[in-house]
């Protein structure tokens, strides 16, 4: 498992409008591209050989699965921000303001009152 790499995916995609669009339109294809050429990048010259995803992590990212990502300890800010970018507009048009954010919370309702999966340490 690489919680760091999941976070790196969310971080690098959220800050790039083109990657974000591709993650929205075809998550599986974007994830494959990301693993090949973006994830390993340290800068334009240096590449890392260290990190990789588990199948469960790949599946959670491909499915935009906020509950699975929460349970893996993906950072709450990254996960909220990127999925707001992907879903907020269409949910607001369909079901009103904050409807996506409230549904996101509902998908995690079973964690209320429990210690959340750690995002660091």
């Amino acid at each position, binding site marked *: 498992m690489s919680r760091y790499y999941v976070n790196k995916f969310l971080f690098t995609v959220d800050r790039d409008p083109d990657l974000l669009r591709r993650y929205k339109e075809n998550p599986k294809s974007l994830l494959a591209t990301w693993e090949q050429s973006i994830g390993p990048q340290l800068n334009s010259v240096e590449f890392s050989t260290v990190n990789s995803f588990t199948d469960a992590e790949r599946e959670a990212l491909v499915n935009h699965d906020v509950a699975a990502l929460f349970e893996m300890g993906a950072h*709450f*800010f990254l996960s909220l921000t990127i999925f707001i970018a992907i879903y907020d507009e269409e949910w607001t048009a369909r079901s009103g303001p904050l409807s996506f954010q409230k549904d996101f919370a509902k998908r995690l309702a079973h*964690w209320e009152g429990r210690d*959340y999966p750690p995002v660091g340490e």
Partner: protein
Amino acid sequence: MARLTAVLATTHHPFYLKATTAPVEQQIPQAAEWKRKVEAYRETLTKAEPEILVMVGADHFHQFFLDNYPQFLIGKAPRYDATFYNEEREFGIPKYVLEGHEELSRFMHKGLLDRGFDFAFSNELKLDHSIICPIITTRPQADLPVVPIYTNIFAPPLPSPKRFWDLGRAIREIIDEFPSDKRIAAIGSGHLSLELGGPRQFRETGPDPEFDRQAIEWLSTGNIDAILANVTHESMAKSGNATHGFMDLILMMGIAGPIPAAYSDCLSLFHTMEAYLTWYPEEGAAR
């Protein structure tokens, strides 16, 4: 020596600008009250007539990420761009350019090292909404040079609440020793109880209104003993997974000292309680 004429501790709700500048028919019901409260709060800074701003905030994975995340960092640049693409996209916050104050940055950095705070530093720092939101609310003309200080309230393991208080005390000493006749204000932003990306997010109020009430009382009365006796990383997590931004408000009270705030106001909004506190460390500075 420089004069510290005001210390402000505020929440930074990134939707303030959008909420209060939207067409009236699209505004949330609290928009007018929110704007009134923010403008009244702004006056507490304006009347202190600051010439330099020491700004305390926390980068939200905009410039810094988990490959290299500083616990405490000071900006030492001549100028700072602000607002990242994903903040414009999500919050509608415009881009800004703020002048730096390299002399105070250098003096501050050295003073912090001398006092046992081994700060990271950046000569090319782009600021995020933790610093731009309070500029929008308290100094929208964005016309003063700034010294930005970033803390880690975000990527565990975090420094302790006591460390934030002690850092505030150290910053105060350094400002008091800065050889200048300038009037300095310190403005820091953080949170009360807050949940992001968790089951308690985006409710009618913040996730822990009782903590919010208590926290405002502690801050407004300068009661650091009660804060340090009651507030831990674990207690903040119980109040909401992003509540640790409260530590930046503790830091600001550290700059002011354990004294009552001259101004304290709050506003309950969906998702969060907003808090606006100002201390005037010099007697009679609030002219």
